[in-house]
């Protein structure tokens, strides 16, 4: 009897993870459309999708890391370092040079994170906290503290242009989501990421190359930070060394609101994407209804806590 009950609760938790986050988004959209008639318009919805792109992309990389029971606090700084590199390199070189080098730098930093975590066994929180500071410092040194303007027209359109009426940043986000979803659910690597987060030692004993995969996960996080940096630099047309400051927390928020467990082994990128949208829609409707930006912070904070609380209730069974 008790087992039947607990399996009911457990299956409710599963359903919540699959549908609950989605249902929460739908409810929020319904509420938003009742609060403002400007909400449910194509330009506004596309606007939301464009606004959430940067944090959304970061959050997908963060999902990989958190699934392994890790955390990556450095993503904001990695975004920053790629932004100043794009800006600095575009002064003298073409996009074909600037983009790979910017992405490469962020991946390299991710590689260092991964090696520190997997081989030197430094706790992810500490390793990436160190990188947060280090990479930000590099960004300041590289720019000498002054923002570098970006004048390249083609680069500008990356963050501000449209394809088939959809903002390019949104398309980049959707592509990152789709590719990540396939990797996580359909490749041995993705499957092992869940295994590592669920029980690292058991995964190792089963023959999973745990250290290698952990390194890859942080490299992925670095790569998507660089991608997010691309969108950022292009949208603002300026390479400022403070770019992305504090974004790591927004990314983590999107991941946990999307139902991924901070204890590892549980969660999906689809959930993270929906979590990103929930936060985006909330911000949007608060803007449309003219809520004071300071007060908006309160809503966001409460949302994160409530979402995680609900999840932990359903998860305990």
């Amino acid at each position, binding site marked *: 009897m008790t*087992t039947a009950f*607990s*399996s009911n609760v*457990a299956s409710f938790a599963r359903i919540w993870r699959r549908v609950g986050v989605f249902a929460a988004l739908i409810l929020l959209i319904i509420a938003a459309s009742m609060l403002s008639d400007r909400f449910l318009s194509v330009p506004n919805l596309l606007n939301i999708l464009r606004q959430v792109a940067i944090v959304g992309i970061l959050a997908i990389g963060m999902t990989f890391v958190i699934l392994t029971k890790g955390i990556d606090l450095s993503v904001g700084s990695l975004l920053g370092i790629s932004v100043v590199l794009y800006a600095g390199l575009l002064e003298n070189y073409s996009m074909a040079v600037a983009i790979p080098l910017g992405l490469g730098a962020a991946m390299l930093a991710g590689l260092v994170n991964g090696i520190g975590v997997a081989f030197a066994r430094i706790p992810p929180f500490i390793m990436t906290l160190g990188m947060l500071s280090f990479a930000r410092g590099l960004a300041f040194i590289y720019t000498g503290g002054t923002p570098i303007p970006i004048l390249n027209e083609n680069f500008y359109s990356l963050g501000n242009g449209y394809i088939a009426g959809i903002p390019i940043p949104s398309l980049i986000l959707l592509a990152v989501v789709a590719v990540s979803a*396939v990797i996580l659910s*359909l*490749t*041995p690597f993705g*499957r*092992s990421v*869940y*295994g590592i987060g*669920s*029980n690292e*030692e*058991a*995964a*190792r*004993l*089963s*023959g*999973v*190359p745990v250290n290698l995969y952990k390194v890859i996960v942080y490299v992925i996080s670095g790569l998507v930070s660089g991608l997010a940096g691309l969108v950022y630099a292009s949208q603002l047309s300026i390479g400022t060394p403070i770019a992305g400051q504090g974004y790591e927390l927004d990314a983590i928020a999107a991941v946990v609101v999307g139902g991924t*467990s901070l204890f590892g*082994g*549980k969660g999906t990128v689809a959930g993270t994407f929906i979590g990103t949208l929930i936060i985006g829609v909330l911000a949007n409707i608060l803007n449309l209804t003219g809520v004071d930006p300071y007060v908006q912070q309160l809503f966001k904070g409460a949302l994160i806590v409530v979402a995680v609380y609900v999840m932990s209730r359903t998860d305990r069974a």
Partner: protein
Amino acid sequence: MPFDRDRLLLEAQGLTKAFDRNVVLKDVDLTLHAGEVHAIVGENGAGKSTLIKTLGGVHRPEAGKLLLDGQDTVLRSPADAIGRGIVVIHQELSLAPHLSVAENIFLGHFPRTRLGFVDRRRMRSETRSLLQRLNIDIDPQTLAVDLSIAQQQMIEIAKAISFNAKVLILDEPTAVLDESMVDTLFDLIAKLKAEGLGIIFISHHLEEIFRIADTVTVLRDGKLTGVSAVADIDQNWLVSKMIGRDFPEFSAGMRKIGEPALEVKGLTLPGVFEDITFTAHKGEIVGLAGLVGAGRTEVAQAICGVTQPSSGEIRIFGRKVRLRNPKAATRLAMAYVSEDRKALGLLPNRPVRENATISKLSRFRRFGFLRLGKERAYVGEMIRKLDIRLAGMNVEIRTLSGGNQQKVLIGRALAIDPRILIFDEPTRGVDIGAKSEIYAIMEELVSKGICVILISSELEEILRLSDKVVVLRRGRIATTLSRDEASESTIMHAAALAG
């Protein structure tokens, strides 16, 4: 040990108990005489606790009679049962933590002074003499919180005696005790038996039944499947009554043993194990015996690449190998099923399906992607073959029973198509039915020519299954025994004493 067959304390006839339409106890008889220790055994869900609760006045039976001292009796409540001399000692002990031993014993029937106050002096002296009588060496003034689990249990029993219990029911009393405490408890039980109490004793440890009980009753699925004097039966009888079939045929000694599969020579990891040398062949089960801490698991983990030995060599099918990590062992078709399911086995919050295939995802890979359909079919087949009982392959593995979890982990090891398989305490924490099925799986594996290394603390298990027994003591090989030489005494002697 004899008991008084003429003094029947308790007799249950045809006890039947159902919850809703679910019959959990069906037509069960039980007799208990003065001075008799009567063991009740059965798998989880066999109805043991329902029977106890019925005898202890918690449940009222739907049908059947209970006779106490020959009198037809209906127990209305646990208090009623205690009043009639039937006391149940539950697994969860229930002393009041901040009262003294004496206060706990006399809680509910404090001796009083003429003025009606609690007579502390008498309470202490009576407690002291009661504990003395029972050979329990505890100061009556100690607070219950300061007692060990074993001591708390003793005090609960003493408390029962102070209630003039005639029938004492102990629900898995040894589950919470370590080896030496079990001895003390059994001394106490012998004492009570000598005083003429009737004792009903529940245990999962079959060897305890042979040590302490006069009579045994076996339950399965709520029904009585066997009653016998313990002197007339053996473990096989018990097990077959418990699981409703016999243990698998053990083929040790009659197996077709092939070429050497695993050769270990002089394997050494200083401070952990030294100079480990043995050979295991195709189609052979080699038992690794020894006390806890003798280094059995450590040797197994070094063989499987979990740790790196500092010297010595390992040959697999004649080829010298150096295994840098568990993956290397997997590639050589060598699998290890860990003793520590929780820490080293389960991916607790992942589905059974993923738990089963994590060891060999390449099996389902095409063009870099997993073919989920193929994986599902494979796991379905595994569930059927290993007879894993679950709601579906997508339930999280932590929801399964210990035995079924273990079978999934064995399935995980089998997924790599092993030629060498190391089982480390494969039946720890699984019930007897699953145990017998795990033995059957091992028998089938060796019959297919797989080389099996069995690490176990249960000598029964080692003796039944092994063709050869390697005994470790403090990180060294104490002796290697052939099947004919191996016995409980030769193994224990080598493991603990000699040298």
